[in-house]
């Protein structure tokens, strides 16, 4: 390869400048006198500066499941197209952890305090489980909640077994149980959106309070697709299909090259456009070098375009890179498969 002489001189100069800059900054140190700097910079407190495997995405515009917020007395999530009104005396004090490598999301944690007595009255957890990566052998929300009921510890009492209910024209699976020893009641409402289980978990000592929270779900807005065994995207958002990245749909594949050997699962959701190209990647959990290696590879993949009613359509699917921690799942009806 012939390199233009002027260009090569520029490269040499650039390299020399960088080395000078590195020398000027000096080596990193564990300690020293440092008395010449009476006002050193101070690190912020209570901030996670060093992250391990974390969520990220190939662009900052496409909504993500973890992108919801409690603002002005409502929890709003653009990815799920969900709005849940929050009463004025309920607040979100702490944000949740990042998505897990098995596809679990804490979307919001909301609590109510009795202001006079300064004691907690109840808790609302809004969570999601990506059905592409769940550790539980279930293919849809109904199966997932039923499995949860079957494996419920004997210390809990089932108040209402998983039942299909309709609230504000949307169907949910409702599951109520309690703990006699803790004197706590749990009412769970779950639905499926974009191949995720989205669940509202209401907990309180006060059975009337949790029931009122269930009734207030009529104020919640959800997408048309939401339902215990539906919720497979489509319309304004991509159709979601489990295992769309199987061999017969992948026309060109480039394997990611990981520079460092790690042993964590790297679950990835990709959106494939009408031409079969990857247009968005969401890493649920990956180290930055892993995310870069997977991005570099995935943007070279070519898929067979997905046809819906004979017309090309965007499709969303899940791919697991790295190590799978999962047991083999089995399900009577793989409802998220087409």
């Amino acid at each position, binding site marked *: 390869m012939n390199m233009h002489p002027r260009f090569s001189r520029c490269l040499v100069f650039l390299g020399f400048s960088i080395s000078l800059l590195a020398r000027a*900054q*000096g*080596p*990193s*140190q*564990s*300690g*020293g006198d*440092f008395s*010449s700097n009476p006002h*050193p*910079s*101070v*690190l912020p*407190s*209570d*901030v*996670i*500066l*060093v*992250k*391990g*495997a974390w969520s990220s995405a190939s662009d900052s515009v496409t909504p993500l499941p973890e992108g919801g917020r409690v603002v002005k007395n409502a929890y709003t999530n653009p990815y799920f197209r969900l709005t849940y009104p929050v009463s004025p005396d309920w607040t979100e004090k*702490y*944000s*949740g*952890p990042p998505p*897990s490598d*098995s596809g*679990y999301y*804490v979307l919001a*944690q909301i*609590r109510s305090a009795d202001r006079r007595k300064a*004691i*907690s009255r*109840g808790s609302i*957890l809004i*969570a999601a489980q990506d059905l592409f990566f*769940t*550790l*539980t052998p279930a293919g849809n929300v109904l199966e997932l909640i039923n499995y*949860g009921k079957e*494996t*419920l510890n004997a*210390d809990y009492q089932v108040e209402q077994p998983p039942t299909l209910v309709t609230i504000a024209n949307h169907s949910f699976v409702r599951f109520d149980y309690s*703990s006699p*020893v*803790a004197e*706590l009641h*749990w009412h*769970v409402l779950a639905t499926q959106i974009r191949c995720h289980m989205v669940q509202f978990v209401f*907990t*309180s000592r006060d059975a009337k309070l949790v029931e009122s929270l269930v009734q207030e779900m009529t104020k919640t807005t959800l997408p048309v697709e939401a339902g215990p065994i539906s919720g497979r995207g489509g319309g304004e958002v991509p159709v979601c299909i489990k295992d769309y990245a199987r061999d017969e749909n992948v026309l060109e594949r480039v394997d990611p090259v990981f520079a460092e*050997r790690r*042993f*964590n699962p790297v679950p990835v959701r990709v959106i494939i456009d009408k031409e079969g190209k990857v247009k968005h990647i969401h890493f649920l*959990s990956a180290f930055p070098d892993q995310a870069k290696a997977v991005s570099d590879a995935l943007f070279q993949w070519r898929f067979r375009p997905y046809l819906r009613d004979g017309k090309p359509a965007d499709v969303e699917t899940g791919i697991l890179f790295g190590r799978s*921690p*999962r*047991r083999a799942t089995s399900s009577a009806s793989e409802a998220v498969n087409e």
Partner: protein
Amino acid sequence: MKTIRLAAVLTLPVLFFAGIAWAQTDPGVRSSTGVNAGQPFASVSASANDFAFFQSGLAQFSEDQTVIGDNPGLGPRFNLDSCGACHSQPAPGGTSPASGIFPGIGPNPQSQVIANGVVNGSTNTIPFFVQANGPVREARFPFFFDRFGNPNPNAPNGGVEDLFTVSGRSDAGGCSLRQPAFNVAGVTRNIIFRIPTPVFGAGLIENIDDSTLLANLAAQAPFNRVGISGTFNHNGNDGTISRFGWKAQNKSLLIFAGEAYNVEMGISNELFTQDRPLPGEDQLGLGLPANCLNLAGVGYPEDITHSDGTSASTVTSDTALFSVFMQFLDQPTPSTIAPGGATSIANGRRLFGAIGCAICHTPSLTTQASHLTSDLSNATAKLFSDIEIHHMGASLADNVSQGGAGGDQFRTAPLWGLGQRIFFLHDGRTKDLLAAIEAHQSNGSEATTVEELFDLLSPGQQQDILNFLRSL
């Protein structure tokens, strides 16, 4: 009128103190029922050879190391001169001591190193975070400093910064080393601490197969209505689940012992074969000065297997004996009656499960067959841990990455023996069990909802949980 006002004034304090009496409190370190940890397995005691091995391990674990002499190799940098000094509460193999609670153990030994002649007071100072009644601590700087003393968030460090040097000791020759810049690190918030993890029952943890841990992870998923979803740290060499240390960064007790001998005491061994410079000394590209190397005069590694030994105990290296000692230590025996009585403890245990604490703090796991001793085989390890690493949020984050664990991820701390621990959380920031529970909630923590459920319980129920935990 005056009488009514006086009555009202008197009534208010009575109501106030009555309120305090109802409030739940940490019962404190369980001492009245004696020390229920630190014994070998019955199958070890029943075997003359195994028991001799255990006793040799205990002796080595408790021995004070020196730079030269019979127990050579200390330094040139170190945190203390004996395993047993840090792991002493409530018995050898435990965790950080404090004066006044188990008086036979005494004050924090790191606070006494000058008084005891372990370090020279003219060349070393006691760092500001070491207190007589505080925990034994290891310090780390999450980030390297630039040359002006500013922590650089783009240069992660996280390695151990040993507290003391051998400089000035009569057996240290001309080795002259400075202590790390702890005060600057404190001012800039570029310092975090770790306290010793107790090792009672550690052999059981070592002998839980990966398949058992993975099955437990899968079993947690259906109950995931409280925000929990952990993962595992892995050994970089073979990819299996690692399990020892605050971030589950160490694979085996032998590696754990070898690393501690090297990092905490400065003694090279067959697993970690060189004297260890500070992370900054490594980064500077200089390593340790030549006159601080081979201070023991025996060459490297300083701790070796002895081909001239006459018995298993005398052939075996110190590091391997530490490992045997830890493997043969039985799990602590919980109390069924103290504190608070049997009913409260039993109630607390059920409440602990009901609100979701037991998802991460898994009450028990079963070990696989053991080649070491029969009591390690197919045993029920009542560890109260899933050995997973979990996001614990911004308030507990130490910004140190180890293996696959990020700055806010920690192994679920095994709770067995908690009743006789003095300090809680990875850095020993509190002695109050209630404060330790409350610290589980913060931005980014998996445990926030579970802590909220704890808050929903009545004071009496919360007291039952505290009593249960202190019974362990």
